[in-house]
């Protein structure tokens, strides 16, 4: 990605925001989309500063501590009861979570 692309992308159109909202599963009104698009112009300009010093020679840090190989033994521990598991469910049936019809690919 070159710098020109980055500058171009320092703003997001209403449609860009709409696409992100779809990915994030948040219904948004037209007004919200437009507002966010305006706000992002300012915010993205500020956060894009990270690119000024993020050279190819710098290793990224994903974890603040240099821990490695943290595992648990393969031992079964008690589960919740189905009542506990389902205690917060908006709807349930036969000890299963009841959810609205799933439109999408069959898994």
């Amino acid at each position, binding site marked *: 990605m070159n710098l020109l*692309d980055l500058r171009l992308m320092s703003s997001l159109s209403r449609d860009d925001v709409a696409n992100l909202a779809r990915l994030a599963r948040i219904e948004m009104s037209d007004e919200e989309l437009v507002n966010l698009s305006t706000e992002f112009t300012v915010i993205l300009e500020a956060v894009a500063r990270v690119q000024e010093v993020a050279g190819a020679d710098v*290793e990224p840090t994903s974890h603040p501590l240099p821990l490695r190989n943290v595992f648990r033994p393969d031992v079964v521990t008690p589960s919740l009861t189905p009542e506990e598991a389902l205690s917060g469910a908006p709807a349930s049936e036969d000890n299963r979570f009841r959810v609205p019809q799933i439109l999408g690919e069959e898994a």
Partner: protein
Amino acid sequence: MIRKSAAEMATALASGEISSVALVQAHFDRIASVDKQVHAFLYLDTEGALAQAARIDAKRAKGEKLSPLAGVPLALKDVMVQKGIPTTCGSKILEGWRPPYDSTVVANLKKNDIVILGKTNMDEFAMGSSTENSAYGPTHNPWDLTRIPGGSGGGSAAALAAFEAPLAIGTDTGGSIRQPAAVTGTVGVKPTYGGVSRYGLVAFSSSLDQAGPCARTVLDAALLHEAIAGHDPRDATSINAPVPPVVQAAKNGDVKGMKIGVVKQLNGDGYQAGVRSRFEESLELLAMAGAQIIEVSCPNFEYALAAYYLIAPSECSSNLARFDAMRYGIRIGDGDGASAESVMNLTRAVGFGREVKRRIILGTYALSSGYYDAYYGSAQKVRTLITQDFTNAFTKVDVLVSPTCPTTAFKIGEKANDPLAMYLNDIATIPVNLAGIGGMSLPCGLAPEDGLPVGFQMMAPAMQDQRMYSVGASLEAALLSKWGAPLLSKAPALGGAK
């Protein structure tokens, strides 16, 4: 009694001067009289707390050996899961959810017989610096009810400042323990990342979140720190090493021969005059106590805010995906052949507030294909550079210091429509989270221009948390002898009674 420190309360409990039930009841009475004004609490577990206090009193009567803080009450930030007690994270989306399990912090509190009074208010999912982003209304700063108590842990800090609890639990992702402590005149500590288990802490940004103690004195914070810290096999990022000797450090409070570094980039332009003068005064006190004050430069800190506002939203966009109306929380738009997808879309639209949505969208963008390297990837590199700045600085000094925040508490509503101005509050606290090291804020006086508290921040290398407690305790003692009384005694009276 409610104005005493937790350590003093513990002594009174141990000597039989007061029972835990009476102490807890006194705090509930105080809450009843002032929380209408402050709004620090979202939920009070009156019955549970009093029952727990009674059990502790009974144990004490039987002569059982109890932990140092046994019977002392505490306020729990509503981001921490407690079995059977509503946990909302300040969000509408979790309204009514009662978790079926205890967080490790709560389990440790219970093990230490610390009495949990209830859950405190916060910015929704810990996103904010003012507690204005709570779906349940803002918390007010006990120093000036028209002002913010900081955030995201404004409820916990305000509860301490209003004497509604002597101890509180906070969580700090970019300053959510330290900044509220600073603006309310209380003590807040963000331990080294991995020092306190995150199991049961509802995640905002997993690689930055850290729970820690909030208190009115350095020693109280240290006692609570020891009670909640330690390795937890249920958190893979938890450090498997002994807890740093923070209580000992807080009791000794010795800075003789210590090298204290003033971070050049976290002072000066943009910092309120009164904040700077109180900070300078504190440095003088530390020098008089025998510390050597040195200026150090951390050039990459100027990129910290930008990196933070990419990393935290990115991780939050993923962490908050689970709030989808399928398994827990509210569900909007079900029925009439609605699909799961539309129910998710509507529930998240209604259930999340504006700031949370803003950050989810920003994070979704920063992680999306084609932009990952430019945003999230670059931010992770800045994180490396900031860690290197700290590492370099700690070769020269033992502890780094700065003002905790650039300004004192601002007015409720003042920055609500300017996200960037709001984000700037965290400019001095964020580098600590990015590097995973420890940070503490200590009240260091009132800004002359507005009479509001100023925070003094100390930062120590990973797993050297005791160093902050040494400096904090030393400065606290020097300030106390200068003031003659704790800072909070100067706060205005609340409610009807004193």
